[in-house]
């Protein structure tokens, strides 16, 4: 306690001691704030560790598909939602082209996420929200859509179509 009293007795020594106290107060509080703040940021910003590898879901039979006539197939998919595993219904527009290659498009328009549908008469995908038009291969024909339709990763097991992850940008990943 005596050294504390000394602070008030000597002026020149007092200022340097005072500077030490003030510096220590700032320094220690900065250290505490960093030790609390950084883990908090990491905790809130880092994505959760992935729990399960992508699984493949059976969507349907592709043998009955006619060439260039898209069919909407429905399937159930498991999705990790935080601490839960949800099973949800999902759909894909499946097309077989003339060369028997199968493509599965995600069910949402790439503009603002509306559900589009196949217009049989015109032979185009039409989004009713803002009139985006897509060709049978997913390319944008007209309207505000910024990119071609999104595609699912797909696998064929015999005639069974297995659907995997949905890829943005319309690039097909085999």
């Amino acid at each position: 306690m005596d050294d504390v009293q000394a602070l008030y007795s000597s002026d020149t020594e007092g200022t340097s001691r005072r500077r030490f106290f003030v510096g220590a107060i700032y320094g220690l509080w900065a250290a505490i704030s960093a030790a609390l703040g950084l883990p908090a940021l990491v905790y809130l910003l880092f994505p959760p560790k992935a729990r399960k590898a992508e699984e493949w879901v059976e969507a349907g039979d592709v043998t009955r598909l006619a060439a260039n006539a898209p069919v909407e197939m429905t399937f159930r998919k498991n999705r990790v939602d935080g601490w839960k595993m949800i099973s949800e219904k999902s759909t894909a527009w499946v097309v077989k082209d003339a060369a028997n290659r199968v493509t599965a498009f995600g069910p949402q328009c790439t503009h603002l996420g509306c559900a589009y549908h196949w217009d049989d008469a015109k032979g185009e995908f039409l989004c009713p929200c803002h009139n985006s038009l897509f060709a049978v291969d997913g390319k944008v024909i007209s309207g505000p859509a910024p990119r071609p339709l999104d595609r699912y990763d797909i696998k064929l097991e015999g005639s069974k179509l297995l659907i995997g992850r949905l890829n943005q940008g319309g690039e097909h990943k085999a």
Partner: protein
Amino acid sequence: MRRRWNGLNDWLDHRTGIRTAVRQFLYEEIPASSGWHQVFGSVAIFLFLVQAFTGALLAFNYAPTPGDAYNSLRYILTELTGGRLIRGLHHWGASMMIVVVVLHMVQVFLYGAYKKPREATWMAGVALLLVTLAYGLTGYLLPWDNRAYWGTVVTTQIAGQAPVVGPYLSRLLGGEGAVGVVTFARFYGLHVLLLPPATLLLIAIHVYLVRKHGVAPAPGDEALPKKQFYPVQAFQDTVAIFIAFVILFVLAAAARVPLEQLADPTDTAYIPRPEWYFLFLFQTLKLFNGPLEVVGSVVLPGAAVLALILVPFVDRSRMVRVTRRTTAIAIVGLAAIGWGGLTAAAVKSTPKEAGAVQVDYSAPTDWLHLSPEEMAGIGYFREENCMSCHEIGGRGTAIGPDLTQTAIHKDAAWMIAHFKRPSVMRPGSSMPPIQLSDAQLNALASFLLKLNEKNASALDNAPEFAVAGALVYQANRCGACHLVNGVGMRIGPPLNGLAKLQSRNWVIEHFRNPQQLSPGSIMPPYRLPQRDLENLTSYLFALPD
């Protein structure tokens, strides 16, 4: 630049008076005798802020309903980066808070700082102590594991014993009948909605009163000039806060707070124990039996709180030096001995989890999803000491090949042939033949086939009891009738989720005499050694639902 800054400061000060406010706060006059012994109040407020901060962070990833609460906490612990640290800070922060609040109280008591005119300050402080304990009590339930559940069963029953108000109290806590969703909602509401503003209000009153009356002087202070709070006392407070924080951080980072099994209201074998700071109450309870029990559970603790509140009215003598306050020192000493003795007795009487193994569900638990055969494979893998020659995902000795890589190219038949006569399948191999039966080799191969870089950690984190349990399971061919993790037969009931349906004792008894417990069962009795029974049951109880 500097002029700009000053200009901005002037503008702000003119509108808010911030400069005067900060000055009033920092340059508060304190007695000349103030110093290191008066840092505890600041540390307590700091810890409260840490609890509020970490509590809010936990709430961002927490679902406050039973069941989901457990799953979301497990998600915080195992899947979020830093989640374990945040939970550790909150858990240990609660304990530190109790310690610091009590130290603060002891200091004020020893120095007689509660004397006229500071009686109200002291009483607000006692209220803050009770609020701190209420946080501990209500927060205990929120993980919704077995520990939380059974601890709260006891708490609510004690509340129900209180004379006259007991039934109403237990109804208020939602603990009437049984601990369930209502209890959980009440405890959560208290913990995060009611107690924090109450604490803030009490802290405001407490600090206002401290400022109104000034920090209590010691005899002799009248003659000395007053000091200012800033910077010397502020420095001392900061150092104390920093030390407390370092201790808290190390505890949170190093001492793992276990999450037990999901709360199981049918688990009659579970022995609940309260948090360490309530152990003395728990032990007091044991001193009284029958109709006198209420004395230990309600009357004595109530009397103690009343005595605390009345301290400033009992001791009305003049302020004297702390070294001369022999009565106060004696009371603190006796209280410490009494508390320590009761706590030690409670710790001593805690059974060492006889045979019942606790699974740390907050640790990585990849092994939970392996089939019993694969788990048994881990057992043989450990027994045969394969790691002394083989590498697993870059760990171990690299004499033999890395097993996470080779498994991809070989099938079970190749492996079993290789185990029996290594050099036939791989000419030049220096591996010794493995002396196991065909069934055992099968298990080993099935585990190795499943092994990849991602699940290699299951080798380390599969606990001994589970591996031992799986070995018993395999040896007795339980899989010929039962299903575990999707593997086995459906002649008997599937065994996942068994822990939710039956108690431990029931299952152990059932092994000995199936027909007596489930009439009509075609299961043969199993006369297994006690150790095997315990391990097998623990393993089955640990399985995911």
